[in-house]
């Protein structure tokens, strides 16, 4: 199997879906000739032409609003926001229309579009280029919110998102784009949206996470085992909404201790929903308060100090030690 970076894996998904289905068209700022500022759409303009890969004027609402019209017509647009921090200029199109067209028309129309956007910190970028605001989209009825954690699941989830009959917001961690390579089969692979995955088995505590935070969590889990012998079970959500609570609820019932890790701000973040599900469904099995290791409730600092903001393996490890001692 070829070993691909996440950028290459996403490119493979787009390339194969475009080849298989002429309803799939790409649009966004600099996605054509330039191949996208992160090169996710590299080579697709050459392969499929300007008719399938649209370089758009610089306007986020325009891109999303136009995608909605294309999707209603029966195409499968995949649009790119250059950074998720610029997607707010299109927020009303997502909230008012993409998310509601099916409901408003009582099923006559639907919006099978994907909005791809790089999110998260860790790449020493400018202001507006490092935030993690998945909660906005996860909170909107009618949208799906997906965040892959590595090259292989990024490819398989993007294929599922493109084929999904409803609008999917697909966040890609910039920190993971070229962080490492993973074996990605050339043959089609699809991961259903709305399913989480156990990425490490353990019986002593449960750590729920997603996206870029999976790597520091996995590292912390290994270190924890070496230092204390305690085995952490790690669950990668993969989809934030609709949230699959089956695995982490069952896991917390077994381990009695649970923690959620994300880089988004803590208050009203995705972790708040995870904690609530645990309280509702695993309360009597818990032996300690549920821990949250997250971004703080502030704007992520400019990059000179962004590392102080982002959860890392050491922070997760300290929280895990406190949790098993509790």
């Amino acid at each position: 199997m070829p070993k691909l970076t996440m950028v290459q894996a996403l490119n493979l998904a787009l390339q194969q879906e475009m080849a298989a289905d002429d309803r799939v068209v790409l649009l966004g700022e600099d996605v054509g000739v330039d191949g996208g500022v992160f090169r996710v759409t590299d080579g697709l303009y050459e392969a499929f032409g300007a008719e399938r890969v649209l370089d758009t004027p610089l306007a986020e609402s325009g891109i999303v609003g136009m995608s909605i019209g294309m999707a209603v017509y029966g195409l499968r647009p995949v649009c790119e926001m250059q950074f998720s921090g610029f997607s707010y200029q299109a927020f009303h199109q997502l909230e008012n229309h993409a998310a509601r067209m099916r409901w408003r028309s009582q099923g006559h129309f639907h919006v099978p579009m994907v909005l791809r956007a790089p999110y998260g910190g860790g790449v020493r970028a400018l202001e507006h280029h490092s935030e993690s605001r998945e909660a906005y989209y996860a909170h909107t009825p009618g949208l799906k919110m997906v965040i892959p954690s590595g090259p292989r699941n990024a490819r398989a989830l993007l294929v599922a998102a493109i084929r999904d009959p409803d609008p999917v917001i697909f966040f890609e961690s910039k920190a993971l784009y070229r962080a490492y390579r993973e074996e990605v089969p050339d043959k089609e692979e699809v991961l259903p949206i709305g399913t989480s995955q156990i990425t490490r088995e353990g019986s002593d505590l449960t750590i729920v996470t997603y996206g870029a935070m999976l790597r520091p969590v996995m590292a912390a889990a290994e270190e924890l085992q070496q230092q204390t012998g305690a085995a952490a079970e790690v669950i990668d959500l993969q989809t934030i909404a609709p949230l699959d609570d089956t695995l982490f609820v069952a896991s917390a019932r077994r381990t009695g201790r649970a923690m959620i890790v994300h880089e988004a701000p803590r208050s009203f973040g995705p972790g708040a929903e995870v904690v609530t599900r645990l309280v509702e469904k695993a309360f009597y099995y818990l032996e300690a308060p549920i821990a949250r290791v997250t971004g703080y409730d502030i704007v992520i600092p400019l990059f000179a100090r962004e590392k102080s903001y982002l959860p890392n393996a050491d922070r997760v490890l300290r929280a895990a030690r406190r949790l098993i001692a509790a």
Partner: protein
Amino acid sequence: MPRTHIELDESIERLSILDAEGNVDKERDPDINRELLLKLYRAMVLGRRFDERLLALQRQGRIGTFPPISGQEAAHLGAVAVLQPEDWMVPAFRETAAEVWRGRSLESVILGNAGFNEAAALAPPGPNLPVAVPVGSQMLHAVGLGWAARYRGKDQVVLTFFGDGATSEGDFHEAMNFAGVYQAPVIFVCQNNQWAISIPRHAQTRSATIAQKALAYGMPGIQVDGNDVLAVYAAVAEAAARARAGNGPTLVECETYRMKMHTTADDPKRYRTDEEVEGWRRKDPILRFETYLKRRRLLTKAKIEAVDAEVREAIQTAVDAAETRMASLGDPIDMFDHAYAEMTPAIAAHREEFLAETAAAAEEGSDA
């Protein structure tokens, strides 16, 4: 270094064919066949009478708030009359008569205004988007639909409506710009009814006309007397032919007037004078069209009375049907449908919770 005048090979025109007294410019009279003329007349009368009936229903508390269309019948009906059945219409929310023209039943309109989601299920699944309340946001969908139609090799055109207020929105600019760049087959029809709730046209934009905004996007713009159904039809027909031939979008500004309130929750006496309203009443779109049709011997006093009686009966039938249907609707369990193609686990759980609450409330005799 010289400072020179840049010649722009562009200008805008104003079109008027039928004046307020019913006098017609015979040279510019679009060649509308007799059947379509009479269909337009009936639709305009129906639009007006339906508006009046909806207002009465609202004042009686039988439906909720709604945006009246009176005075704007020519602006939106003259425009949609140009469309072929397979063309798309992307409405704002003050084009009720155009929606009905495109096949939406009166019953569906009444149900929607009475707060029932089921209204959408009664609308035909044709190429007509539902109304869009957030001002200006629908125009971009028209661009996407038009682009997609071209991508599929169809010669469909897309007509989208918006008001003078919408031209201040960013989405107006983005839609016009995208349509220009992609030469999308879109007809942008502005119903400039002079008021965006309490903000008059001159306070909305410093531009002398709305039509001229087209020039900045590299597309033709034309201003028409929006109370002149012949002029609206002619301008939109020209725009549709341009779009169908692959020559891109057009902006048509229809100068009209909102004779009633913004919605039934609004009191226009707070911001405009009776004199102004009376001035526009003399420019009524239906009266002048009636004069025109009488002079062409297509309409008689008896025929006018017959049309009036027929539309009133159609409205009464729709009101009765809607009220009968409302009595059978109202099971709120349906509110969990149509969020996604497949119900999510959370929604399924909420649905179960609601059923349990309903059962518990029934047992207690309280509200769920």
